[in-house]
Every structure is written in structure tokens, then in C-alpha cells.
């Protein structure tokens, strides 16, 4: 920022109506967690369920954040998003399988030397596939939602079959590296190491995305483009380049989420992206189309609720996400953090 801009920002008069974050949806996360405590009854069980819910939420956030940006910025209904998750998972599985010797050493350094390339491969492979999808399948159908649904669903089916061709039709088991397997005890609560890792990675991804969107010019462009792409072009920016960048980044994030999800499930299959797609769409809708903060809060709510209801009333677990979506949309019809579309 220039000195004038900075001085204006520091001017006491200018600080009057500062931008405030809407804390109410964010507060729902601790409210739901605390409300579950008396129902669960046992503090250690509650801690375990809460960490599991947060970990699940973080992984869903990683898989969904790219979709919400693509939805918001490009107005594209991408039903093929699940394939980026699956391809990312297969990419990570391929690397981890080939580096299994490193993972037998039972040291964090050697585990990381296998996991980091695996995750990078997942991001790169999914990003590359995202680039292909944008250029070949989605670009001809911008502005036509029906064709977008048809062509992306078609793309999803074709690439699921291609996964069978490349990696075979069988489920691939994916053992976790030793240092992130098992649990540690806090008080009387058992906390799975991998779930803690998922929470840390999820928080890091959210922080990085928040900083990128709120502290950089590219982020400013993306946020403006989500609201009014035509006006961004009228200011002299080539929105199509931004579209490609966001699509590739969103696909890469889905790949990262897919890799994390695969290690959580300890297996990889071609349908895994499709299996989580409904939950991802629910999170994107709950959060508000195009809102990364909304997606983050929505994913945490979905993750926590799924774990609490799974423990308290297993028969309700499948419907808990739908119920949550209905309640949120009754309260805020455009989602928790609606974006002002032009």
C-alpha cells in the first residue's frame, strides 16, 4: 500500500466503520461441540469424537475449497470435482507404494521423505487434470449450466474408467507411515495421530488460502472476480487467466484432500471421489457459494455433526448432513457467508 493509502487507513476518521467478520456462523462450531458434551457424557469420548470430527472436517474442507472457488468465480457446476480427489489419491498411493522401504524405517524423517513427494504428486496430478478439464471440457460450456452438468458428469465417468485402465479395477490398500499410525493419550482420551496431522494440515491450508485471498493482489482479484467477473475485466484484468489458475489450484487442493482422505481410509478406489461428492456439495452450499471461510466453517460443522450423531444415534448419522443443510438454509438461504454476486 502507498504511503497515502497507509496514512488514510491510519486516519482516525477512516477507522469508523471497519470491516468486521461475521462471528455467528463461526461460533456455531464451538457451540455444537459444547452442546454435544453433556449428550456424549464422557469427556475422553467427547475429546476423541471432537478431534475425529475436526479432522474429518479439515479433509472435507481441503477437498471442497477448490470447488467453492470454481463455483463462485467461474459459475461452473463441476460434477467432475470428485475425479480430482480420486486421481490425487491414486497419485499419492503410487508414490507411497514405491517408497514403502522408507516408511519401514519408523522415523519421522524417512516417513516425511515418502509423504511429501506423495502429496506433491497428488497435487500435481490433480492440478494437471484440472487444467485439461478446464481447457477441453469446461471452456466450451461456460454460461450453460445444463451442459456443464452433463459434460462434467460424463468426464467423471470416463476418467473413473481410465483409472481402472491405469491402476486396475481393484481397491489398492494404502498403509499409513508408521509414525502417524496409532494414537496418543491426552488425559484419558485417545487421539489418533493421523487425525491430528489432518487437523494441522487443514489449518495450514486454510491459513494459506486466507492469507492469499486477503493479503495479496491475486487474492483481491479472485474475491472481486467471484462477485463480478465482468467488472474485473473492465478494470483491465484478464479474467480467463485467473479462471485457469483458480481451476488448477482448486483441482490441486482436491488432489491434496484426496491424498489425505485415502491415507485416512487406508485404501484407494476409483469411486472415492464420487462417494464424497455429495458431502462436498453440501459443504459448499452451507458455506455460501464462493466463500472459503464459509466452506471451512461448513466443513467443520459437517465433520463434527457426523461424528457426534454417529456415536449418539447411528441411524441418524447419514441424514445429519442433510438436516444441517436444511437448518442452515432456513436460517441463511444463501449460506453461512454469502458472497454478493453482481
Amino acid at each position: 500500500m502507498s504511503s497515502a493509502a497507509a496514512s488514510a487507513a491510519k486516519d482516525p476518521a477512516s477507522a469508523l466503520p471497519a470491516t468486521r467478520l461475521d462471528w455467528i456462523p463461526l461460533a456455531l462450531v464451538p457451540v455444537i461441540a459444547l452442546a454435544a458434551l453433556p449428550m456424549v457424557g464422557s469427556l475422553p469420548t467427547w475429546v476423541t469424537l471432537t478431534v475425529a470430527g475436526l479432522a474429518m472436517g479439515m479433509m472435507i474442507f481441503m477437498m471442497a475449497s477448490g470447488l467453492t472457488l470454481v463455483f463462485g468465480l467461474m459459475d461452473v457446476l463441476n460434477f467432475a470435482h470428485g475425479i480430482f480427489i480420486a486421481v490425487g489419491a491414486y497419485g499419492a498411493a503410487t508414490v507411497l507404494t514405491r517408497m514403502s522401504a522408507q516408511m519401514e524405517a519408523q522415523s519421522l524423517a524417512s516417513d516425511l521423505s515418502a509423504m511429501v513427494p506423495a502429496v506433491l504428486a497428488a497435487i500435481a496430478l490433480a492440478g494437471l487434470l484440472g487444467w485439461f478439464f478446464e481447457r477441453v471440457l469446461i471452456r466450451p460450456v461456460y454460461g450453460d449450466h445444463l451442459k456443464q452438468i452433463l459434460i462434467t458428469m460424463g468426464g467423471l465417468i470416463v476418467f473413473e474408467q481410465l483409472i481402472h485402465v491405469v491402476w486396475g479395477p481393484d481397491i489398492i490398500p494404502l498403509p499409513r507411515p508408521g509414525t502417524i499410525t496409532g494414537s496418543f493419550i491426552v488425559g484419558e482420551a485417545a487421539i489418533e495421530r493421523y487425525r491430528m496431522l489432518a487437523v494441522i494440515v487443514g489449518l495450514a491450508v486454510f491459513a494459506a488460502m486466507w492469507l492469499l485471498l486477503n493479503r495479496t493482489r491475486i487474492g483481491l482479484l479472485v474475491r472481486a472476480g467471484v462477485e463480478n467477473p465482468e467488472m474485473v475485466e473492465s478494470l483491465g484484468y484478464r479474467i480467463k487467466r485467473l479462471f485457469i489458475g483458480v481451476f488448477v489450484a482448486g483441482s490441486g487442493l482436491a488432489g491434496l484432500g484426496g491424498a489425505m482422505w485415502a491415507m485416512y481410509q487406508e485404501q484407494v478406489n476409483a469411486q472415492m471421489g464420487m462417494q464424497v461428492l455429495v458431502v462436498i456439495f453440501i459443504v459448499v452450499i452451507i458455506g455460501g457459494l464462493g466463500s472459503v471461510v464459509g466452506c471451512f466453517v461448513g466443513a467443520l460443522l459437517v465433520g463434527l455433526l457426523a461424528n457426534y450423531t454417529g456415536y449418539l444415534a447411528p441411524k441418524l448419522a447419514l441424514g445429519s448432513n442433510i438436516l444441517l443443510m436444511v437448518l442452515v438454509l432456513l436460517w441463511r438461504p444463501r449460506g453461512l457467508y454469502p458472497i454478493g454476486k453482481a
Partner: protein
Amino acid sequence: MPEAAAAPMLALTGVNTHIAQYHILHGVDFEVPRASLTMLLGRNGAGKTTCLRTIMGLWRASAGAIRVDGRDITQAATPEVAQLGVAYVPENMGIFAGLTVRENLLLAARSGEPEAKRLAWIFGLFPAMKTFWNALAGNLSGGQKQMLAIARAIVEPRKLLLVDEPSKGLAPAIIANLVEAFKELKRTDTTMLMVEQNFNFARTLGDTVAVMDSGRIVHTGRMDELAGDAALQTKLLGLSLDSHQ
């Protein structure tokens, strides 16, 4: 006067625009002289907004030529037109409601940061921009949003400003503020093309005028001449200036 200086900043020659199956502009011809404010008037549906959007490249001309500062931009994409120094204030203002006033202006300053001197000048024109510097643009009043839209267009020096109905839906006091701001802009020799329905507003600011009807230019000339000819106003716009008083 040297030839380059005498050449118009904007020239439209035989411009036709189709939107889907509809033929909206039918051979539009007019010029916007440098360092002047040209008013584009006409009844609702005459094609004024389409004309601005065609110049900006938001809709593509199907025939004819558009030149800005001597350069043909007929087939140029919108970002190219903007990079040439053309700024656009759309009818709906086009502000980014989820961004702060500061962020809206920062985004419009393509060459980097807004210059301190320029920013001070904008704060002088629109003090509300300084007061609400960190406020979300979506929380501003209608008049303040319009001020932001104009401030964004002039945050850097531009060759040409295209402004679509700046007074639309605003209270008289706000319109008076806008008039003063545009007068100040005129003193800086900024070239402007403005669509306007408020004839008083147009008469106060306009140097030259082009009147559209059914996608065609039906009159061009000096604004003061049109303002002084009630019969011509009635013929071209359907109402005389007296009825706007």
C-alpha cells in the same frame, strides 16, 4: 491546432451490435472530442447502454469501427480496451460489495499502488471515500457507492471515461455533489462520454451531445444548443427541458 490534438478521442463509425438474435445498434456514428464531456441521450431502450458496452468490448460490434485515440479497438477484448486507458462506470455501478473501499480502489490502480497525490485529490472530490476507507463497499449508501464507482474509474489518469447514468436513483443533494465532482474532472481535461436520463444534469455538464433513438444516432451537436431549443428536445427526447425543471 495540430492534427493529432484535433482528432477525436473516441470515434464510432457505422457500429452495429447484435445481442443474440436482436439487432440493437444500427450503424452508430459519432465522435467524442478530447477534453470534453459528451452526453449520450435518448429514450429508454434507445441503445445508449449497449453503445457504451460495445465500446468497452463487453459486447462485440458486428460491423463498423471504434477508434480510441486513433487506435482501432473494434475487436479488442475488454481488458485491452481498459489497458488503453478507458474506464467504465456501469449503470449498476459495478462496485465489489464484499471488498472495502480501499480494496476497490487498490484493484483499479493497475500500475501498482494509488499515487498519494491522486488519492488526496480523490478524497477532496469525495470525502466519504476517506471516511469509509476501511468499510465494506456493500455497506455504503447509494450515493456513496456511485462516488466509489467514479473514484475507482479515476484512481489513475484515464484517456476516456464512460459513465452510465450516474445520477440514477440518487437524492438531489447527492446529485449536486456529483455535478461538482464532474465539473472538477472537466477542469482536468478528462474526456468523458456519459449516458444520462436527467436532462438538467446533462445540460449542466455536457459540452457536446449525441442523441440516440432505436439504435441510431439521430442528432449530434452542442449541448447548449439543444438545451436552448425546446422544440428540438421535444422532437428528440419526447419532453422539453421545462418539464424537467
